Every structure is written in structure tokens, then in C-alpha cells.
């Protein structure tokens, strides 16, 4: 649906060359929620603006439904943009217009008849739960309500794609939750493809199907959110994951274990979906006569899938420990031996 091929964007600021986006290739499928995560300055803002050509890529191609945006004339590009809604961190509503008029904007720009505008805006305000606030001005609304108005406005032109530029970054955690729920609902009910950028791993975890991790203008890692969570490759990805659950044991605890007479083996086990139900610790004890001891455990929801991490210390015969590890590895679990000696 959305295809970015070798997209680069170079800016010149005071004769300094700034490579905001470097050779990014990615594809967003119809109906999915695709997240792009990175620290500020990673180039994600520029990248998302390349998708609707608010920024024209210096190199590479952007195609929407197979149409290369660079091949479109001004007028055609404007028509295409109407099918790509966009919401922003700072909401970007007209302060001199009421909620109703703000939501009506895309319809008026396209010259829709008055009765259609009334019907459509009413419907949209119903969806975002702001029907009774239609005569208010943005300054009378809270941040979350402003973002709801912006979402209603973005949906007014019946877009196929919704771009979210740090849509929840200016909101408190509770409001963030409700906006994310709304985005998820929009994605499911109206089958609108969503591309979002964020610096919060929580946003990715909560609603995204796939994720791309950006660093210094490059996409360094991408894939299904669950895969990236369970097998992060890059240091930056590990860092982001650490922001929502820290799988590293505290130094003091590691030091304690090291001083033990029989320190045994530290294992980190990650599991997703069905495996959560299997009694693996009991199996280790019964089948291999090992003594598993839980050091750390965490279970979380990644979109619709349960994802857990367990750090255990097993003591017993070295051969039995190895056999235990082999057994766990056979169960489609992620097993990692933690080297705590070094």
C-alpha cells in the first residue's frame, strides 16, 4: 500500500548539509498499524512527511497504491493527499474556528455541499465523542479533546491512510491511552492504515503490528512488534524495550549470586502466546532434578499477544542443567544464558 524505496532527504542549513533520512526502504501493508520509533532527531518526522510529500525526498521513491508520488502534478498530488489524513503532536487546529468548523475543513476545501458537511461532521464528532462540544473553540478544550477534533478532521475526507506525527507525545499517560484506543478502533472499524511515529515504546507495544526503529536517519531494524520485542538486534532497540520492561537484573543481586557456593546458571526465558500456559519450571524440577529459582518475571500484552520474560537461576548437576536448557530450547522459547561472571 505504502512503499518507500531508498528514500533519502537532505537539508541545507547555513550551508551545512543535514542528512535527515538516509536510504530508507520500507513497506506498509493495507490495514496495519505501522510504528516508527526513534529518539528526537532520528529523522522520523521527516520520514513521515515524505509519505504525503510534505517533504519531497531528495532521492528514492514513495508510492501509494502503486502510484509514484513524484510523477503526480500539483493538482493530482493534492487529491492524493486528501486520501491521506494526518494528525500532529501540536494538534494544529484553527484557533479562530469552532470544533464543528475545524472538522468541516477538509470537506469545505473540497467544496462539499452544506447538508453533506452537516451530516458527516455530526457523524465524526459522534465517533470521537465530542458531539456536545461542536460550538466550542479549541482554546476551551483539553489536549486530549483537541487531538480528538484533529482525528475527526483527518477522517473527514474518508482517508485510506492516517499519518500520526507524535500524536500522543504532548498528552498525559491517561489521555494517551484513550487516544491510542481511539486509533485502534478507527483502524479496526474503518480499516484505515495507520503509520505513526513516536519516541515511546509503550505506543508501539500497545497498538502497532509492525515497527521500524530509526537511528541517525536510518532504519536499523524492522519487523513484527512481537519479533522485535523478543529478539531485539540493535543496541538502540534493546534500549527502547528497556524503557517499558527492564530485563536486566540489578548489579547487587548479580554480585550476591556470584558469591554463592553453587551459583548455578542464570537463564532468561522469553515466551509469547500459547507457551505462557506451559508449566516449564515444574518440568525442569521433575524431569531433570533441577532447582529453578525465579529471580525476575514480567508478563505484558503486546497488542493482542501475551509476552513474558522470566529470569531464573537453576542449580543442579551441570549435565542436567545442559539437558534442561536443551529441553527449553526445543519449546520455541527464547532462551538466553546470562553470563554474570564477567
Amino acid at each position, binding site marked *: 500500500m505504502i512503499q518507500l524505496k531508498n528514500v533519502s532527504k537532505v537539508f541545507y542549513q547555513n550551508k551545512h548539509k543535514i542528512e535527515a533520512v538516509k536510504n530508507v526502504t520500507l513497506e506498509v501493508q493495507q490495514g496495519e498499524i505501522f510504528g516508527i520509533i526513534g529518539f528526537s532527531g532520528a529523522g522520523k518526522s521527516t520520514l513521515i512527511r515524505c509519505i*504525503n510529500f*510534505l517533504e519531497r525526498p531528495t532521492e528514492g521513491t514513495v508510492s501509494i497504491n502503486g502510484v509514484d508520488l513524484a510523477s503526480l502534478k500539483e493538482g493530482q498530488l*493534492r*487529491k*492524493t*493527499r*486528501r486520501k*491521506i*489524513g*494526518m494528525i*500532529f503532536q*501540536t494538534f*494544529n*487546529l*484553527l*484557533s*479562530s*474556528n469552532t470544533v464543528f468548523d475545524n472538522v468541516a*475543513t*477538509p470537506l469545505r*476545501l*473540497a467544496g462539499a455541499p452544506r447538508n453533506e458537511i452537516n451530516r458527516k461532521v455530526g457523524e465524526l464528532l459522534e465517533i470521537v465523542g465530542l458531539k456536545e462540544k461542536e460550538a466550542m*473553540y*479549541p*482554546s476551551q478544550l483539553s489536549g486530549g479533546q483537541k487531538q480528538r477534533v*484533529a482525528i475527526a*478532521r483527518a477522517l473527514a*475526507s474518508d482517508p485510506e491512510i492516517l*499519518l500520526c506525527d507524535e500524536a500522543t507525545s504532548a498528552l498525559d499517560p491517561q489521555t494517551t491511552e484513550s487516544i491510542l484506543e481511539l486509533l485502534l478502533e478507527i483502524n479496526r472499524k474503518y480499516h484505515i492504515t495507520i503509520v505513526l511515529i513516536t519516541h515511546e515504546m509503550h505506543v508501539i507495544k500497545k497498538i502497532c503490528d509492525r515497527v521500524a526503529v530509526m537511528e541517525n536517519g536510518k532504519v536499523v531494524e524492522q519487523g513484527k512488534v512481537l519479533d522485535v520485542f523478543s529478539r531485539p538486534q540493535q543496541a538502540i532497540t534493546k534500549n527502547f524495550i528497556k524503557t517499558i520492561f527492564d530485563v536486566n537484573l540489578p548489579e547487587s543481586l548479580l554480585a550476591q549470586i556470584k558469591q554463592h557456593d553453587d551459583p548455578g546458571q542464570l537463564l532468561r526465558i522469553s515466551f509469547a502466546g500459547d507457551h505462557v500456559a506451559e508449566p516449564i519450571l515444574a518440568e525442569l524440577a521433575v524431569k531433570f532434578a533441577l532447582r529453578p529459582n525465579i529471580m525476575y518475571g514480567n508478563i505484558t500484552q503486546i497488542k493482542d499477544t501475551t509476552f513474558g520474560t522470566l529470569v531464573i537461576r537453576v542449580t543442579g548437576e551441570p549435565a542436567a542443567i545442559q539437558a534442561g536448557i536443551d529441553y527449553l530450547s526445543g519449546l520455541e522459547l527464547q532462551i538466553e544464558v546470562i553470563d554474570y561472571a564477567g
Partner: protein
Amino acid sequence: MLGNFFDSFAEFWDLYVQSMRETGIMVVYSLVISAAIGLLLGIVLVVTRPGHIYANPIVYQVMNIIINVLRSLPFIILMVAIIPFTKWVVGTTIGVKGAIVPLVVYTAPYLARLLESALLEVDRGVIEAFQSMGATHRQIITRVLLREARPSLVLGLTIGTISLVGASAMAGVVGAGGLGDVAIRYGYQRWEPNVMITCVLLLILWVQIVQSLGTAIAKRLRKR
């Protein structure tokens, strides 16, 4: 003393009415023309900036320089300096007609700067949002720039009008009359302190009315 003042007021009544009329005509005509030119220039100064919808460094720089040049001249000098231009435009260099041309040349660049800064206050993010909705450049100018900036535009026009009232007081030099002219000729040259005081009071009244009106309109337009 006070009785004396009222006697004088009655004596010069027709003169005040006449001069208020002249000031009024000069200010209104010059304001309408200057506002139209100033707004156009202000819009051009904003949209031709780097990164804006009609980014054009050459147009922007040239306009910038021209406006700065015109803004450097005090009105009394400008009025004399552009006499040939005035003659070319309205065919005369004296009277109310002869005053309106220099008043416009003086006020329009000033308004251009004031309105430019008002338009610059408009959040670039809102413009970006409109671009993402497929708005044309013209729609962005009319529906975002001009609409969002309305309160500041009104305040800018108010400041411009007050400076116009001030400049119009100097138009007596070219025989256009007005309050300033009365103040100089009767108040100063014929040494009628009561006329001077009345003219000062009337000018203050003018400025008060314009400013209060401007502030009230801007307040009504501002929805935050």
C-alpha cells in the same frame, strides 16, 4: 479664563469642523489604499520567505530593501522628495489629493511591516495541516493566514491608523488643511493658545477613538 476658552471655541467652531473633515478625509482615503497595498505586501513578505508556500529569495529580498528604504524617510521629507511622483499620479501636489499620495507612500510600507509580523504569528503547523489536507496555496492564504491573524491584523491596522493621523497633521505644508494645519497657522503663527489646546484635544480624541475601536474589535475576534 475658561469663559475665554469657550468664546474662542465658538468663534473657531466652523474652522474645527472643517479641519476635522479634512483630517477625516485624508485619514480614511489614505488608510483604505495603504491597507490594501500594505496587506498585499505583508502577505508577499510572509509567503516568499524561505520554506514558505511561495518561497522566493529574490522577491523577498527586493521587497525587504524597498520597504526599508521607504521606511527610513521622515514623512515631511518624503512628502517633498516624491513631489514629481505625486504630480504624476494625481496631477497635483497640493490640497487633500496632493497629500493622500505621500501619506500612502509613507503608511503602506509601515503597514506592510506591521501586517507581516501579524501574519508571521500564525502557527506554521496549521499551514502544514492544511497542506496535508490538500489545500491550495490560495486557500492557505485566505483560510489560514488571513483568518488566524485577524486579531493581530486589526491591532496592526490600528497602530498604522494612529501614525497616519500623526502624519496627516503635517499635510498642511501642501495646503491640505486638517487639524495639524490649524494648530500651526492659528495656534502657533497667530498665537491663539486656545486654538492650540483645542487642536491637541481633538487629536487626542481621534487617537483614543481609533485605539479603543481597534482593541475592541481585536478582542472580539480573538477566541483564546
